[in-house]
């Protein structure tokens, strides 16, 4: 199987290198053919691997590919760990990536950077695969940073736009804050457990879970808790959790296909994947899991609220992504790792679908993203409309749709969990169901129903869009809509209640909420019927009705409501002021400190006083000495006589007696 795994990773790398280096010579068509062929190969092989795991025909694979370096006896290696967890991730990543590749033919059809774009998304696929297939922390970190790099390059893809370049820099820097935590977490694990290899670290941690580290004299922390929290800080950066979420909405400056691929379906879920992968460590620390739970719940609720007041179609979906990532962390924090990964998978399909559908709208309207300039588009874009409706229903957890299974299970799992913060988290995720339905249908009604508010130029453009552009975009929509609808129904049983993950996810006995829930699970169909018994369905329905009422029935009411809750509206429109705090607060003051260090520390103190000061002092001293060397013979003669006198007095004169 090793050759298969190598082919899965290397195909997109070769594709990226080929098109990256020779894209101009290859031309557009051959470039997209090469990259799509590469990612198709990866996708087919990944699905093959996944199916073999699903039928139980394949044993987990954990081998080194090559030794990166050996330092002081520590083997740092590049190697693969392929188990059901990574196989599922590989399949999701390559499938969504393939859809996005095809879609890009349409979306980027008139862009000058066509080949560059294909090269980047191929490279991204490679990096993401390295991340999920890693069997050690070195490679995990490599993948982690490499996806960050491609994200940076793609957010700033339109590099002449100031806002895009700014967003890319912001994304990189905010992610790097998380990476500090991540790297220190890795260093801590290495320092105490002596390895970078997952299995060795897990084994050592299980063997000695009670070690303490002295952070400050007198302040001792549990190594495992500390390490888990540091790793989670990394996850907060990559998966955009409060307070490191600020880069994700701005990342919408990048072209829409990558918003779907990187900033919704795959890269931003790396944090969730990582925590699930580290489940043997997190299970040893209730504190760390509580932290994960609380941050996830806060993000799920607070970011959903911000989504209510956005007018840019992509930003609404971006805030929705933040909120859904929060849900996934809630699942992890409740020790329901399988549910977290399950939601990751369903979300990858329906969120990619939503983004790509939004992208189709944007392209049709000639890069118009403001929902206030849309409306009634179901008449012009019927397939987009229908698929987007499917995605929306999945997102709001309508029964039988994929999102229903994953989200309802999260709510139930956190309800069952007995962990610090679980009650708070339960209420937050429950309320978020209402919020989700409200912003989702707000978007849906504003874009596809109601009055037509389209700019005439945009309408003109829409009428003359080449056929192939729409085709290239509609096929991926359809292919993503299918799993968005059915994947939950089909896979909930094996993934969550069955034994699909096996040893890949570890849950300690007392934390095993899924085991409890499994007792009352009697198949997908009855689980869907079961929805009428819980509060979530009614909250979602209420959200739908509110959206319908405010945006379809009585749109005139909105301004007065906004005025009545002006403070709340301002807080949400300002996104709680995080950006101001970071940009005007932290970044600006760091620059001031830096200027101070440079101009006062370096220029005035070190150079001014020490370096040039020394030179000046020596200079002055020399000037004084120089005064003695007058060059006049009689001065010298006089000094000589004076000296002679002193010497004579010293040696000959009986001067000692003078004092006696």
């Amino acid at each position, binding site marked *: 199987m090793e050759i298969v795994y190598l082919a899965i990773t290397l195909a997109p790398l070769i594709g990226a290198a080929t098109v990256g280096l020779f894209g101009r010579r290859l031309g557009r068509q051959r470039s997209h053919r090469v990259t799509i062929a590469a990612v198709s190969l990866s996708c087919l092989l990944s699905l093959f691997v996944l199916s073999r795991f699903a039928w139980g025909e394949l044993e987990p694979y954990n081998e080194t590919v090559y030794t990166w*370096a*050996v*330092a*002081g006896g520590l083997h740092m290696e590049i190697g693969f760990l392929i188990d059901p967890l990574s196989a599922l991730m590989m399949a999701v990543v390559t499938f969504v990536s393939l859809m996005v590749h095809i879609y890009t033919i349409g979306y980027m059809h008139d862009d000058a950077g066509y080949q560059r774009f294909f090269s980047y998304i191929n490279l991204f696929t490679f990096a993401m695969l390295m991340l999920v297939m890693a069997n050690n922390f070195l490679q995990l970190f490599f993948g982690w940073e490499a996806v960050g790099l491609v994200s940076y390059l793609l957010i700033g893809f339109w590099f*002449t736009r100031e806002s895009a370049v700014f967003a890319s820099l912001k994304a990189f820097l905010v992610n790097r804050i998380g990476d*500090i935590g991540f790297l220190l977490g890795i*260093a801590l694990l*290495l320092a105490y457990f002596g390895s970078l290899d997952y299995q060795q670290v897990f084994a050592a941690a299980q063997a000695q879970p009670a070690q303490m*580290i002295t*952070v400050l004299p007198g302040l001792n922390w549990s190594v495992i808790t500390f390490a888990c929290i540091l790793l989670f800080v990394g996850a907060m950066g990559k998966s955009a959790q409060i307070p490191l979420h600020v880069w994700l909405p701005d990342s919408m400056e990048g072209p829409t296909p990558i918003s779907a691929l990187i900033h919704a379906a795959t890269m931003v879920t790396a944090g969730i994947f990582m925590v699930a992968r580290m489940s043997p460590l997190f299970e040893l620390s209730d504190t760390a899991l509580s932290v994960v739970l609380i941050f996830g719940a806060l993000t799920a609720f607070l970011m959903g609220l911000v989504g209510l007041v956005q007018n840019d179609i992509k930003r609404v979906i971006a805030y929705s992504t933040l909120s859904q990532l929060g849900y996934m962390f809630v699942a992890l924090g409740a020790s329901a790792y399988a549910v977290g990964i399950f939601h990751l998978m369903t979300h990858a399909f329906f969120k990619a679908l939503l983004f790509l559908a939004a992208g189709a709208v944007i392209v049709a309207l000639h890069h118009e993203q403001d929902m206030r300039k849309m409306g009634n588009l179901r008449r012009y874009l019927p397939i987009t409309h229908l698929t987007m409706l499917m995605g929306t229903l999945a997102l709001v957890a309508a029964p039988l749709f994929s999102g229903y299974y994953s989200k309802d299970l999260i709510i139930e799992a956190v309800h069952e969990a007995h962990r610090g913060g679980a009650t708070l988290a339960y209420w937050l995720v429950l309320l978020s169901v209402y919020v989700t339905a409200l912003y989702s249908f707000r978007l849906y009604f504003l874009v596809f129903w109601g009055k037509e508010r389209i700019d005439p130029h945009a309408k003109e453009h829409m009428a003359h869009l080449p056929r192939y552009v729409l085709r290239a975009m509609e096929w991926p929509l359809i292919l993503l809509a299918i799993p968005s609808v059915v994947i939950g129904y089909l896979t909930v049983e094996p993934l969550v209640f069955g034994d699909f993950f096996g040893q890949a996810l570890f849950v300690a006995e007392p934390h095993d909420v899924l085991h409890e829930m499994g007792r009352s699970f009697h198949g997908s169909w009855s689980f869907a019927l079961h929805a009428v018994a819980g509060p979530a369905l009614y909250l979602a329905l209420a959200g739908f009705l509110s959206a319908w009422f405010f945006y379809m029935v009585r749109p005139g009411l909105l301004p007065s409501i906004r005025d009545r809750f002006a403070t709340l509206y301002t807080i949400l429109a300002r996104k709680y002021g995080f950006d101001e705090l970071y940009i005007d607060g932290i970044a600006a003051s760091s620059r001031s400190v830096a200027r101070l260090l440079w101009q006062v520390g370096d220029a005035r103190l070190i150079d001014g006083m020490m370096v040039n000061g020394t030179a000046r002092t020596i200079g002055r001293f020399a000037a004084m000495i120089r005064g003695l060397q007058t060059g006049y013979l009689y001065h010298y003669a006089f000094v000589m006589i004076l000296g002679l006198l002193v010497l004579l007095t010293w040696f000959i004169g009986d001067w000692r007696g003078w004092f006696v």
Partner: protein
Amino acid sequence: MLSLLIWLPILGGILVLAAGERSQGTTARWLALGTGGVVFLLSSALYFGFEIGTPAMQFVERLAWIPAFEVYYHLGVDGISMPLILLTTFATVLVIIAGWEVIQYKQTQYLAAFLIMEGLMVGVFSALDAILFYVFWEAMLVPMFLIIGIWGGPNRIYATIKFFLYTFMGSVLMLVALIYLRYQTDSFGILDFHGTALALSQQVLIFLAFLVAFAVKVPMWPVHTWLPDAHVEAPTGGSVILAAIMLKIGAYGFLRFSLPITPAASMELAWLLIALSLIAVVYIGLVAIVQEDMKKLIAYSSVAHMGFVTLGFFAIFDIFAHTGGVEGSGGAVMALEGGVVQMISHGFVSGALFLCVGVLYDRVHSRLIKDYGGVANRMPIFAAFFVLFAMANVGLPGTSGFVGEFMVILASFQANFWYAALAALTLILGAAYTLWLIKRVVYGEVANAQVAALTDLNAREFIVLGVLAGAVLLLGIWPAPLIEVMEPSLQHLLQQVTATP
């Protein structure tokens, strides 16, 4: 072999000078390139002929030089110095190509200066006799002094004097220490100095004397201020050699002299060196953010990156303390290796960044960031290279810049959580100053008419940057061959450091 590597470039330099007298230009250039190329090829024999797995000196040559004082012409390399020699010969070839048609004024002298300097730098890295080392060490300053003084920018006189006095001040004290050691050991052999029994008070004095010399070269905070000035005024080639090789000589000194000769004092004063290293990472990292001159920015970035080298070297004592002695302290080896890898990587990356700035400077004749913007519109290939090297400077995995930083951070965590935490701030600071530079120079709309008139890389520039890009990626993807070479020597060094009571 080593003699050849020292004297061939010096001879070549003299020939270039002579050739330049008669025929202007081409002959001298090809002669210089030929010499540089042959020396590089010869030096690669050091790598392929190197016996891995032993800390002993290899390719040793030993002749009596001044018998009256027992001074020997004694050369040899181990796993620490050999990669540095390769780096030297490699960088010199690139510098010769980079100066091909850019330097108009007294080009033959310019090329000759680099060749002569190459020989002297190889001499520094291979000398095993203290006096021989000292002679090379001082002589090396002269060509660099001339390069900055003759081919430098408008403020070059101030910069050269500052450079010369700063570095000279340190070396005088070093000479005193070397002579003192001669009387303690009855030898000028550097290897004889190792493991000499010295009282702590003696060690501290010797250590401090060395410290001044090496800290200036590295440079460490607060004796770093000559570097930004020297870089700003130096021509591109000068900056490349300065950053890629000269800074490494200070760090090399710590490994060859300070640690093995005065281990007890090193341990005693490790806190100071670590503090200075961390100040370099954080303070200098901040200062780099607000620079307005591209070369100054990269110069400050160099100081911050060299902070990792010295942090790695001096964190070993705390690592021992925490992991219970040399046995089982792979962390200490990793710290040293991280430091040395960082030296090599920084040679590639900072050299490449200075070459990138040189490419822009040759076209626009400005180093100020505000004179640029939107360069990628006109120079897409150049932009790709510049971004790649920037990412290496940021320490992205897969590039050489990652390897050393990663190892030093991992290892220093074993010494103290806070060392690692402070050092890890470079993840943000490095990204902030490097990528903000990229944002302002490379991205955006075409800023002005001069940028609009830019042309992309020519073949010569493409080759130079392409070769460096290959080196940066290769070292990032597979550092094992480099680390393998140095490991026995560094293991041996660790034993020396801990052997003396």
